[in-house]
């Protein structure tokens, strides 16, 4: 498969990349890991006139925890998250999700920022970041803005990024004591998109739930936050009954479509089971933290 012709640009700094985006706007496309963009270009679903390869920009990849945030450069590869000790130690939702993204070779190139900017409803990072209440830093040549992930993800393959903007950083709030989380993913085989994915983050205090973050993958037109389920848990005791109720509410939020991976009914059921299981696991981790 041969992509359509394009001009290739390889900026070495963020400012150079932003200047190129100013110049080419709608006709320019940022190439990060390329593990979604290049397949789309090969199928000619995407045929940008200008490809702006940000892979050589120094300082755009990396993970550090500072000032109450875990900061991930947008060019951080999935496998860098897999290998990150701080993620393994304190961010179990991310630590369980990262190794389930595509396959090990794709994870060497695919990036966290690229995945979020691509906004595939079957993308795993969108749900993880929704459950964690993350925000993203978005820059243009004239402005820098911070956007809640829930406002960033708009619809299928659609974000609030303007054509001249670049996603530069993902910020995850550092977990309070008594927090835990996990990501559950059903897939037919390694490398397939999720049939269903569920991200859960739970924070407990004195026998009550302080807050819960629950988000769903591949059961709607975008990553869905299960708000009713979250609200039902806030302030409640973390009991099996409360988790079962949250599972039912999340299943009601899901809008799955029947396809070759399963019927809508089946996927809805998996959401219910995964939310219940995820909350139990998150509680174990929260109590151990």
């Amino acid at each position: 498969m041969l992509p359509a012709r394009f001009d290739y640009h390889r900026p070495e700094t963020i400012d150079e990349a932003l200047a190129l985006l100013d110049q080419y706007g709608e006709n320019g496309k940022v190439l990060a890991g390329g593990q979604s963009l290049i397949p789309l270009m090969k199928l000619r679903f995407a045929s940008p006139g200008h490809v702006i390869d940000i892979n050589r920009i120094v300082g755009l990849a990396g993970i550090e925890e500072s000032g109450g945030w875990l900061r991930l450069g947008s060019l951080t590869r999935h496998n860098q998250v897999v290998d990150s000790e701080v993620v393994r130690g304190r961010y179990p939702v991310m630590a369980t999700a990262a190794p389930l993204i595509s396959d090990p070779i794709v994870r060497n190139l695919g990036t966290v920022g690229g995945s979020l900017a691509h906004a595939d409803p079957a993308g795993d990072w969108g749900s993880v970041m929704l459950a964690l209440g993350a925000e993203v830093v978005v820059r243009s040549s004239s402005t820098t803005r911070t956007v809640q992930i829930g406002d960033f993800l708009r619809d299928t393959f659609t974000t609030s990024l303007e054509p001249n903007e670049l996603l530069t950083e993902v910020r995850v709030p550092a977990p309070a004591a008594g927090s835990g989380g996990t990501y559950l993913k059903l897939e037919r085989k390694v490398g397939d998109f999720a049939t269903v994915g569920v991200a859960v983050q739970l924070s407990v205090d004195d026998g009550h739930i302080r807050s819960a973050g629950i988000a769903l993958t591949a059961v709607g037109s975008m990553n869905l936050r299960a708000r009713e389920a979250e609200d039902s848990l806030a302030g409640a005791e973390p009991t099996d009954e409360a988790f079962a109720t949250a599972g039912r509410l999340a299943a009601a939020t899901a809008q799955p479509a029947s396809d070759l991976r399963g019927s809508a009914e089946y996927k809805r059921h998996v959401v219910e089971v995964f939310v219940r299981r995820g909350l139990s696991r998150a509680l174990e981790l929260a109590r151990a933290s």
Partner: protein
Amino acid sequence: MQITVTVNGTKRTADVEPRLLLVHLIREVFGLTGTHVGCDTTSCGACTVLLDGVPVKSCTLFGVQADGRSITTVEGLARNGQLHPVQAAFKEEHGLQCGFCTPGMMLTGAALLDRNPNPSVDEIRWAISGNICRCTGYMNIVKAIQHAAEAQRAAAKAPAAVAAGGGQ
């Protein structure tokens, strides 16, 4: 666009269209046909090569992205007429039947052993989970990578034993 890529240790230059995929740069411009085109959809891993030592699927990367970087293909595994331990082990353990997935499997295996000289069976299976084999059922591929790991560890130990005064 003019690019320079170090391929199996040798600098090669080429003038290519940006849309040329790395796998076609390797096969058609550099003439190294050991890298196979399988699914052409980032799924099968037959086109796996090492980019600066890291396995990537060369059907999902533009050749221009390799400009100034190093590529290792299956042709670069053997050194001075000596098979790489992973190649020798695939031969020894019958790690292939049709051979189509083999270049990708061996490069992924070699990269795994660089990172982890003593992988468990689970770690091997995990590492090759992005490479699909439709003949062997993976059993002998896993055995081959284990065998290569043992051979590499033995080779690494041997000179150390001599240096430690173990020569008898």
